[in-house]
């Protein structure tokens, strides 16, 4: 019950298909997702599994083919453009490559100020003060305010991207692979910054990443995606310690150990992700699953819940 009140964003039966010639790409197929206030929800999967598409649906950058999204009880998918723009101030995003998302011809101060100007927040003076405050928060010297994106390193640019996302005091930030392009030492700086900001400002993150180590560190809950569907979700520790879906199990065992003394023969899944144009019938993982039986090939597994741990498998581990 308590959780229900805490829900910030909820999506049900989301479907997104893209036309591909005569066929359709099934990017998202029947996905339910709930994000609670103040938590970090990790969304993990291999490339092509639809995790970025899901992020874009939530941001309103794409319209779902089917399904509904609610944000703080209001149905986003039923809103007019004008209404949506107001709500959209509370949902911001950070992308993988800040160099591509910052305008190369705007100084970073202007880039950070842009969302304030567009939404008519405060006077010019107040906006400038806000920009300085934001630069301080993300750890960029205020003297650099008039520099341009190309004058910064990758880590600093990502900090600028974060400052810009924070400008409108959002409630939810969709982070799409925010540290994947960064070196490991810089990645640690940015992850620490994101964690600090969450503590200070009570932010909620949807953290999309292919890197299980990063997700394990930053998330409270995790959703594992495979070929447009969420195959398992639950509290991070629970998922990492006791995966129930075979895909999660193989995904976790493929992660390189960072201690050579723990080297061992790995249980690997063979093959690669099937095409989302013609996803396999039944359980989508059955083509690569060593435990697959006849029932997996024919019927779609329903979701089972055990203490907040959801999984969709006919033969859970």
């Amino acid at each position, binding site marked *: 019950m308590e959780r229900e009140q805490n829900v910030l964003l909820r999506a049900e039966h989301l479907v997104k298909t893209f036309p591909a010639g005569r066929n359709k790409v099934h990017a998202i197929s029947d996905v339910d997702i709930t994000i609670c206030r103040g938590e970090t929800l990790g969304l993990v999967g291999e490339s092509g599994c639809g995790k970025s598409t899901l992020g874009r649906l939530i941001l309103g950058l794409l319209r779902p083919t089917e399904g509904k999204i609610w944000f703080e009880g209001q149905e986003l998918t039923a809103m007019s453009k004008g209404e949506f723009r107001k709500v959209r101030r509370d949902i911001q995003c950070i992308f993988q490559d800040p160099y591509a998302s910052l305008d190369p011809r705007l100084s970073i101060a202007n880039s950070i100020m842009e969302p304030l100007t567009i939404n008519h927040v405060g006077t010019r003076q107040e906006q400038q003060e806000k920009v300085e405050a934001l630069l301080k928060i993300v750890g960029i010297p205020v003297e650099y305010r008039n520099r341009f994106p190309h004058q910064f390193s990758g880590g600093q640019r990502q900090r600028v991207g974060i400052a810009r996302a924070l400008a409108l005091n959002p409630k939810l930030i969709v982070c799409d692979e925010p540290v994947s392009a960064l070196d*490991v*030492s810089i990645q640690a700086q940015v992850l620490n910054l994101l964690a600090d900001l969450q503590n200070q400002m009570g932010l909620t993150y949807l953290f999309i990443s292919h890197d*299980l180590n990063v997700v*394990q560190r930053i998330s409270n809950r995790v959703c594992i995606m495979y070929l447009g569907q969420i195959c398992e979700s639950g509290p991070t520790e629970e998922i990492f310690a006791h995966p129930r879906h075979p895909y999660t199990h193989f995904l976790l065992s493929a*992660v390189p150990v*960072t201690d050579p*003394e723990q080297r061992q023969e790995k249980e690997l899944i063979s093959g*690669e992700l099937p095409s989302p144009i013609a996803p396999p019938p039944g359980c989508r993982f059955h083509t690569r699953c060593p435990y697959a039986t006849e029932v997996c090939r024919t019927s779609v597994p329903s979701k089972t819940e055990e203490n907040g741990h959801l999984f969709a498998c006919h033969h859970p581990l």
Partner: protein
Amino acid sequence: MKTQRDKIQAFSPDSDIAVLKISGLRTCLKTRKGRLYPVDGVDLEVPRGQIVGLVGESGCGKSMMANSIMGLLPQGGMIEEGSVTFCGQDFLRYSPEQRRQLYGDRITLIFQEPMSSLNPVIRVGKQVTEVLMLHKQMSREEAKHQVIEMFRSVGIPEPERRFSCYPHELSGGLRQRIMISAAMICQPDLLIADEPTTALDVTIEAQILQLMRKLQQEAGTSVLLITHDLGVVAEVCDLVYVMYAGKIVEAADVYELFRNPTHPYTRGLLGSLPNRNIGKRLQSIPGTVPMLAEMPQGCRFAPRCPHAAQACIEQVPAMTEVSQGHLVRCPLIPKEV
């Protein structure tokens, strides 16, 4: 030409001589900003049959080093000092013709993005067949047969059908397997792999690493594995060199390095790994790798080092042996850092 070839093949393949020995390698880039040294005095050895990891962050010069060995330096780049010996012979003295005979046969290379190393308009089978026809003087028929066998052993499903595919018809993992087939088909002495799994998903990465290890053991190939990922190093390497700003800062066998990381940079890298010390705050390294044109005097890591003392800023540190085979470039060693 025939005699040159015979001479090159007269290496003693089973001797104890290191397959690759680099000493004092200094690579220079002539730019508008003057001479820059992305590789500045590197000593490195790849013993026979071992996988040697070269780790560092982007911009530390690790790819430049591979390119120096392979003669792939960009315009304005040249090796200024140092020597590279391959199986005991001075490799840098070879004529371009002599080197070309080694590349693809005895020394091979895999890059991060197979799409940019494969020719997009030639069928993949033909691209691998060419290697055999050129270096082993095989007929097309013989070569094709052997390539299909190779495709099968690197785990390419339906190798006969894939033989006549174009690179764009294959997934990233399959393309990297094609590259590995091409690199391993002549059973080279040395394979240089520059970030071979960085572009791949974690499940495919694990498959490729396992495959590289298997082929390496079967063919007795030595591997120089260039990566930024300490996880990959921990999984497959025997020896590790840590590179920072053009210099090797620490070298040890892989168990020793992860057990006793000594250089503050190595410690920082390990502390930054998100899956170590769960629950504690990540120990990030402040600042960024210095620009080539703005290299600090003295120890190059000093501006980012939490332990930096006056000595670090003044003098260029030398490599010190802290224990058997464990070398560290830090002026504060052997004092407790």
